């Protein structure tokens, strides 16, 4: 399962008003570490589909949302609950490390 892309138009519905915990992966095509971490997030998403939604936002296409969430380094992975950011992880990490960072939201 590949993470769904969200846009300016769908962000409120998919992220802010989502009942579930949502991780938004802020990424861009020209960012090597973003491309490296993307398949790992896909794995985490499919292994934890009942607990967390994982979506991706292309900062090149939607700079206003990137600015709103003060993104200055990517990949930036922000966990949202009830519309609020509850956790931020910066930078590509191996799966074990990422799962450890997100443990509270995958349990």
């Amino acid at each position, binding site marked *: 399962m590949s993470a769904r892309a969200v846009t300016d138009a769908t962000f409120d519905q998919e992220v802010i008003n989502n009942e579930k915990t949502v991780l938004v992966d802020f990424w861009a095509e020209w960012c*090597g*570490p973003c491309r490296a971490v993307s398949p790992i997030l896909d794995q985490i998403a499919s292994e934890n589909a009942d607990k967390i939604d994982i979506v991706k936002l292309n900062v090149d296409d939607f700079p206003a949302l990137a600015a709103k969430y003060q993104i200055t380094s990517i990949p930036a992975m922000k966990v949202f609950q009830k519309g609020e950011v509850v956790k931020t992880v910066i930078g590509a990490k*191996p799966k*074990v490390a990422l799962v450890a960072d997100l443990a509270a939201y995958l349990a």
Partner: protein
Amino acid sequence: MRQIIIIGSGPAGFTAAIYAARANLKPLLIASSVEAGGELMNTTEVENFPGFPEGIQGPELMAKMQEQAERFGTEVVYDDVTELELTGPTKTVTLGSGETHEALAVIFATGSAYRKLGLPDEERLSGRGVSWCATCDGFFFKEKTIAVIGGGDSAMEEATFLTRFASKVYVVHRKDTLRASKIMQERAFANPKIEFVWNSAVVGITGAEAVDGLRLRNTVSGEETSLPVGGVFVAIGNDPRTHLVHAQLDLTPEGTIAVAGRSSKTSQTGVFAAGDVIDPTYRQAVTAAASGTVAALDAEHYLASLPADLLADAGETELVTVTN
């Protein structure tokens, strides 16, 4: 069991793989899960790799090296080594997935990791204006004033690249001369958006929610000043990545893995090292590639010297165990 496992996927690792594969050693190369391709993956134009007169993008060069290694039978695994057992004739490599692989020889080519400034606010403001990857993060500093810290080639490359986005780039350097190559220096000096701040050590990064400036100390007069910037890119060098082996292999005073003379032989029989992890001085893609060649040839020579029954066991290339 295998004949050889190569750890690392930069120019040293892939060049070692090309040689080992062409020697029919069927190498397994552990590429890492998120840093496959190594440091060149985060660079843009590579202009000093021979054979590419027009220059080549770092990621493209690495893709070509991998293609060449795979063409001769290298098997690439995208995982991270979590544990290494290097003593004795059989070496054991454990991966993040829990898989364990065995080999008679190991080439260690894990390169180096970005050095941090070691300032208390660096971690707190990381992702809030402090960055180590200009190609990833330059985009977020459009029309901003930012600083690059460092005086080497990577600092010059980052500063020059960042002028595509930023309105002003300060290069903050501890000395009054640069370590960078002449061509990179001249390019930076000629860039109207770049201004050099000489003889200045960074003693603090300021900002409540995001970076708003640097505290600098003049290395000659000792005077402290503030430099208002919206972002800071750290390019002060790299440290050899030896954490997996520092208890098992001898290191040099510089922290690189010690090798015998001009060879790649480490303090452990059957373990060879190549690239930035053994090189405190040159650290170029070409020197790393050459070093990978040396390691593959040394390993090939070592394997040829082993008794036939050991080598017969190493014909098997399947996984040894899966623990989870």
